[in-house]
């Protein structure tokens, strides 16, 4: 049967704010039937506003050997917000220094 039916990968979009997410795969003779089966097989309950089906052999993927190279090196903090965790404290220091300088003026203003 698989010799004749194609494997389709199914993606669906929950709402307009969400990206398409992979659901699963199914066997179908063409895209039209794959779309019908996608609803029957995977979307009986979940909310969904759009479905994609893609023939698996049309998807190009990273080979198992290359997947190891996808791993992030651990020295990329300059690309991430967590690499800038000191900012809050430094802003606070400046704010406090400024405010303490302002204090005498405020008092003077009050005395006048």
């Amino acid at each position, binding site marked *: 049967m698989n010799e004749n039916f194609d494997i389709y990968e199914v993606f669906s979009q929950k709402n307009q704010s969400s990206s398409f997410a992979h659901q*699963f*795969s*199914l*066997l179908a003779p*063409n895209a*039209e039937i794959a779309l019908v089966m996608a609803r029957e*097989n*995977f979307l*009986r*309950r979940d909310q969904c506003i759009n479905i994609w089906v893609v023939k698996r052999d049309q998807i190009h993927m990273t080979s198992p050997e290359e997947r190891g190279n996808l791993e992030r090196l651990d020295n990329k903090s300059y690309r991430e917000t967590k690499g800038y965790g000191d900012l809050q404290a430094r802003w606070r220091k400046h704010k406090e220094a400024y405010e303490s300088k302002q204090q005498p003026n405020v008092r003077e203003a009050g005395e006048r």
Partner: protein
Amino acid sequence: MQAEMNQSGLTQTISAETINDQQSDKMEAFLSRIDRGERIEADDWMPDDYRQQLIKLITMHGISEIMGALPEKEWVPKAPTLRRKLAIMAKVQDEMGHGQLLLRVAEDLMAPLGKSREDIMQDLFTGRLKFHNVFHMEAPTWADAGVIGWLVDGAAIITQTMSLDSSYAPYGRALQRICAEEKFHAQHGESIVLELAEGTDAQRQMLQEAITRWWPSLLMFFGPPENGGITSNQQLNMRYKIRTQTNEELRQAFLTKYVPRIFHLGFTLPDETIHFDEESKMWVYQQPNWEEFKQIVKGNGPRSAHRLNLREMSYEETKWVRDAILAYGRKVG
């Protein structure tokens, strides 16, 4: 296994040993991935016995979902209310959907061996492929439909929750979808059971009879106890982290969850000895007849032949539909 290479005029022979070394390197890398808790994908290298174990487990699981729809399907036309009819229809449809998911996972594992869904179906019809003992049994009353949902699906949730952490990633992903729906099935069953338990004497008696009828099958569901000696089959599945708990551990979890509830409703079990032993923290219970279990899963259960015939008939009678959509599919691409 010998391969010859001709390199710069010299004939080098790669001995079987070298190839074995390469295999054992791969095996070592595979096992350390398993040990690190990494999960394996369909196109990753895997040892043959890992692939075989998965094919056996997942085809059996997938076919059980499909065969499991049959005893409940009998109750669709006879459901007592429209809401119950809609709910049990939804459940039957879910079970077929679970079968579809799992067969896809199995097919991807079988593809490198040149096998397909057709082979799975033929193995089922010739009796080579087994399915769960519970789906060989009769469901003569509406209370059986309730007990199947409550306790059979309850038992399935316990094994499937364990398998969510399976080292084979595609199986884990299929089970995530399945477990979410099984929870609905169990609640659907609980709802039927509570309705009958809170009903008339006749309804309560019908439910008691169903519980009594299903009890041995429910104990058998998890497979024979290990009694200290874990089979090589189970050992392999544990080593490869395909499963993490033994048959008996799963059955104990089932008893802990469900025996008290059966008693809370005022029903009895066909086992006067059953009790929780505080010292060993284990349920002590009468063993079902394991010889009978073997016969049932071999296809000699009360409804085995009937349900297999039904499945085969439906497969043959719908062949023209598959042929037609295939012919149409080829035309439109």
